[in-house]
């Protein structure tokens, strides 16, 4: 038993615990708090953190902890959509460019370069203005911003694997291009991409919160994390918990996602 415990890295355990708790918040928020995230008790407004209100209350007396718990589903699903958009779109482009090479490679990668040249926030804001406001649209906007990173990584992995002897050996044993791609190139190049996806998950939560903070994400009174921080901004001087505590939750989740992504990258 002790030997098994020695192999466990405590940092990673904490990271997984944080992510598990946040996912549980998103799925079964009522297990963590019995209060309503939207309706407030005006008499209890702007109370400091206490036993009754773990994270304190906001300007109209809503329990902040309840709002953070109920906000998890918005932030997590948003991050999930964003990573999926980036992963699928980027990997598709990268694998296409890496495996076909030549003109396709040149055109696709120049497009990706253009995407990289636009500042991420500006790109996301432009896409939201095109698609309209809302949680899902904000997520898609963030996802499009990460397409470039996924495309570049998956292309470089595909190019590396394509030069391996076993890929040539597969062609030598009569395989066609699509068979080699699906049987050899993809399975051997996706590990790094999965690591990047975990990293992007943290980044996406941050980006979605940023958009929420700027007012381009979910509309109030949705308890989305970025929006919570934005609403607390007016009370920074008097009620620090309104910005600091949701902010710490975001930081913890992002750091945990990074730690897990690091571990995924190392075990390959």
């Amino acid at each position, binding site marked *: 038993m002790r*030997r098994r415990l020695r192999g466990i890295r405590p940092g990673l355990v904490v990271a997984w615990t944080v992510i598990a708790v946040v996912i549980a918040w998103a799925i079964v928020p009522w297990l963590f708090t019995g209060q309503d995230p939207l309706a407030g008790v005006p008499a209890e407004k702007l109370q400091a953190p206490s036993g009754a209100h773990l994270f304190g209350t906001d300007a109209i007396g809503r329990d902040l902890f309840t709002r953070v718990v109920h906000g998890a589903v918005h932030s997590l699903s948003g991050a999930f959509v964003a990573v999926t958009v980036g992963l699928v779109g980027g990997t598709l482009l990268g694998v296409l460019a890496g495996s076909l090479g030549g003109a396709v490679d040149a055109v696709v990668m120049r497009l990706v370069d253009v995407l990289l040249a636009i500042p991420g926030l500006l790109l996301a804001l432009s896409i939201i203005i095109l698609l309209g406001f809302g949680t899902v649209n904000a997520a898609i906007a963030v996802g499009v911003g990460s397409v470039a990173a996924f495309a570049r990584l998956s292309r470089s992995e595909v190019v590396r694997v394509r030069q391996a*002897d*076993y890929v040539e*050996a*597969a*062609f030598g*044993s*009569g395989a066609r291009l699509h*068979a080699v791609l699906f049987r*050899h190139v993809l399975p051997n190049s996706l590990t790094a991409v999965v690591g990047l996806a975990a990293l992007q998950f943290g980044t996406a939560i941050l980006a979605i919160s940023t958009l929420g903070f700027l007012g381009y994400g979910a509309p109030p009174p949705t308890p989305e994390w970025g929006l919570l921080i934005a609403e607390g901004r007016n009370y920074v001087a008097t009620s620090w918990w309104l910005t600091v505590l949701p902010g710490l939750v975001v930081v913890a989740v992002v750091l945990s996602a990074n730690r897990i992504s690091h571990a995924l990258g190392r075990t390959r």
Partner: protein
Amino acid sequence: MTATAPLLSIEHLDVGYRTRDGVRPVVHDVSLDVQPGEVVALVGESGSGKTTTSSAVLGLLPEGGRALGGAIRLSGTDIAGWSDRRLESVRGARIGYIPQDPVSSLNPVRPIGVQLAETFRIHGRGDRRSIRGRVLELLERVGLDDPALRAKQYPHELSGGMRQRVLIANAVALSPELVIADEPTSALDVTVQRRILDLIDELRREHGTAVLLVTHDLGVAAERAERIVVMQHGRIVEQGATEAVLDAPGESYTRRLLADAPGLAEHAFRHPRPPLFLRDPGVAAAENPFVLEASGLVKEFSLGRRRPAFRAVDDVSFQVLRGTTHAIVGESGSGKTTTARIIARFAAPDAGAVSLGGADATALAGSAKREFRRRVQLVYQNPFASLDPRQTVAEIISEPLRNFGVGDRATRAATARRLIDRVALPADVAGRRPAELSGGQRQRVAIARALAPEPELVILDEAVSALDVTVQARILELLEQLQDELGLSYLFISHDLAVVARISHSVSVMRRGRIVEQGATEQVFRAPQHAYTRELLDAVPRRAAVAAVATPAPSAPAVPPAVPTGKALA
């Protein structure tokens, strides 16, 4: 031996590695002496503990490794328990080290002159100006032309042999009493190997340096060492004067090493089998005797716009007789691998023609090319790179069948099992992945995959060069056996003449893209016509008096001529 105190004396040394399950010993009770000025060879296959022993002397064991017991005496002083800091005064100054891999052992971002000067600086020998002079002197002494230019060059600008010379210069910079050379020539061509070993010999004679030569090749040991220490499974199985060990090996393991060393054992040259006499002479005469004919192959690589193209393959023609092995030998850069890739249709020739079984196969594309690949299979040099790490052995072997749509899942699995048995692997490897297999086992898997589509010609591109001599000998035996039983034809690409002499029926010697000599192996090797062939032959490490080898050469099993030659794999 002389009565003087030994320079290096290892006494009952045990080395172990700390693992999760406690300390795992890997070297047991090793005792050996090196006298001043003596060359001692430490011989064994990979995993025998020879490198661990030599690293222990330098105090350079990998993470977790340490000497558990015994003594390492350098001129009488026990250095086994010394700290890293104390050992620094010994490493480089009193014991020099020549590593195995010249490619990864030099810092790629610093000129070699700076790297050599560092050795002097660390040990505080001389000021800036005198160090520069000594670096140039060293580079000249290890036989590099134009030392002033070389000192300014970066490692990637030098060839493998030149880089090894730089490492030797580094090892002998401070005139150590002992040099430990860990497989100093394993990564090099035979001719380069010979020159490097000559250089070590020369430096030893000039300065009276003792050498501990770690090698898996008994041929190298026999040629260069005064005493041989044979190791297996972390223990010394036999040691003694070279002559005594070679002439009267006491242990069966030593005898096996002797038989496996391609340069030492005398193998009978192979001859094509006589045609079957029970056949209609008319039919036999009408049949094309050659499985492969290449004529006038040319391949050029562009070096840039203004410069003339580089001819990697220049007017190469040869034939492979059905059921025989044709070898192409040459140093690296001679164009032999490019030739093999043209034959396997991984590269297109700029001129010339390839015909397989009488049908032209030069300009195949699309489905014709796939059909062609069913008949010609390639086995790669590096079995660590040529197998997909994510597939199981059974999946790897049955892949060609899947690609060509042969049989259903069950029959393909049955074929894979039969082929695993065919290449003498245990049946339980079917479900394992390449990472769980040894180098020799992986190469067997690669051979099984090549056999799966029942090809007419198998191209073996340096297929045994990355393997230990003992493993190499087993793979060569397997190849011979498969050829006899299945009537396969091989195109065998190698830089190692001793291996070629053993496996091939006919041979082409390539140099700078051209074939300089070709013919029956026996004829070419017994009476080489071209100076380059003679040079290659001389470079094969062997004892001075080859004829005196007393070991009974295990002669190739005589095959009765009536064995059917059909390539019935079923």
